[in-house]
């Protein structure tokens, strides 16, 4: 099947049934990501209390890759500390940009590995993670995938 190195079953599953979608209004940290290339938008909201993340949710519209990446992200960083979440974000961004050779230790996020072979799609996978970083850094400006 063509393209199946990118569209693995886990990605398709999270794209069809995204987890933690729909933002809550009582979150402490929020940021919006925008990809001017394709118009994809993702908003990430999270509660930070005593340096720990909880109730992380996302909203917006985008392709299967950006939706699945956001959905997987909400599962992966829930319950982590801010530092752990930021470290994981760096690792995922390195993975999808091909700066990291393997996905060891990244659990389910390994499915994003294939994105690195599709340069035109790297920004789709990175968008939610950029928004998470911006939210945790308290940046209120719209972050773009550029």
């Amino acid at each position, binding site marked *: 099947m063509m393209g199946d190195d990118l*569209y693995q079953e886990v990605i398709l599953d999270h794209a069809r049934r995204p987890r933690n979608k729909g933002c809550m209004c009582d979150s402490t940290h929020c940021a919006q990501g925008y990809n001017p290339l394709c118009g994809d938008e993702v908003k990430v909201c999270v509660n930070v209390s005593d340096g720990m993340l909880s109730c992380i949710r996302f909203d917006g*519209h985008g*392709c*299967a*890759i950006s939706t699945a990446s956001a959905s997987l992200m909400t599962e992966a960083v829930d319950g982590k500390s801010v530092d752990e979440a930021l470290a994981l974000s760096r690792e995922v961004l390195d993975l999808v940009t091909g700066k990291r050779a393997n996905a060891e230790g990244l659990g389910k996020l390994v499915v994003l590995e294939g994105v690195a072979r599709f340069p*035109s799609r790297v920004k789709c996978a990175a968008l939610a993670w950029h928004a998470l970083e911006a939210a945790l850094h308290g940046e209120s400006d719209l972050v773009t995938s550029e």
Partner: protein
Amino acid sequence: MAYAALNSSPAVALGLRGLRRQFPTLAQKINGQPLVYLDNAATTQKPLVVIEAMERHLRYDVSNVHRGVHELSVRATEAYEGARESVRAFLNAASVKEIVFTRGATEAINLVAYSWGRANMKAGDAVLITHMEHHANIVPWQLLRQELGIELRVLPMDERGVLRMDLLDAMLTPEVKLVSVAHVSNALGTVNPVREIIERAHANGSRVLIDGAQAVAHEVIDVQALGADFYVLSSHKMYGPSGVGVLWGRADVLAGMPPWQGGGDMILSVTFERTVFQKPPARFEAGTPNIEGAIGMGTAARFLMDLDRGALADHEHGLLTYATERLERIGGLRVIGTAPDKGPVLSFVVDDVHPHDLGTLLDRAGVAVRSGHHCAQPAVQHFGLHATTRASFGLYNTRDDVDRLAEALHHAIRVFR
């Protein structure tokens, strides 16, 4: 490859098989499949005659233009000005003095906004555009609005992507100094009734700019018969190189316009006290131009003029009709832009499959299409969408290409359902 279309007359008249061999890019495999190039509204492939004309210049004739008296300078100047004459003939302009080389249609519109707009508009005046414009025909006017306090009016369109001509007269008030309209919509394919728009705008005393970027490769343009004041085009969408385009302006209109960039080649004399500017078109071509680009564009214009343009239009329209029929049979697929008069552009969305995923999966099958907002966000948002997938046809496309598109679409949809 099966060229079923070769049995029908327009393709025969075009000599489609031979024509395809003129375009070396087409003869390759992408992801293991023969390339099907359906992104012609973004840019077209280049024929050998264009590649060779540019190569010949770069190998043997390189010199600056309008300057030296040496042999190479004479050759380069003749080639550059010859290209201007080719474009003049292509547009049936009255004179080469009406042909201004720019970086493309975008720069041509910016030139008009900056030069004509600043000299002829003031706070309270209005520019009328339409809901289906490319960003290149929106943003320059917004910049002018910021600077001068002009108003930007937008003629609406209906659910098919057809302009609401019934509203035009009410919007054409005396404040409207310029009407700026796409000839053919890049996102929807709609061919606008520009002749009627020009007539009504002129009756109101407004100038008219027609953005012909999506029109010139597909239909014969006669700027004198059209009667607009400005017509803009990009070389790269008509089988020429990128980075060059043309502003056609009627001689009397151009003559009244101040320069927009200063530099060499656009002056008669310079002292520190006073500079005397050239007449058009040189007045608007400051600095060394894109010489090889202009040569390529002129060659592309000649290439198109040598074809049977009627047969070409029939061929491309036949592909659009065939593709529309085939794609409309695909479950969950909706065509965006259903105007009765369309250029060879087919925008569509598929339930549950994002255009970007569709674009990647089609590419895996060797089929190149565009996905996104096509630099016309308001037009796409009009349909409640953020993005569409767009297949757009050029003179070298075949019914076989349409079949490959339809097959790849079926396959892509299966991945997601």
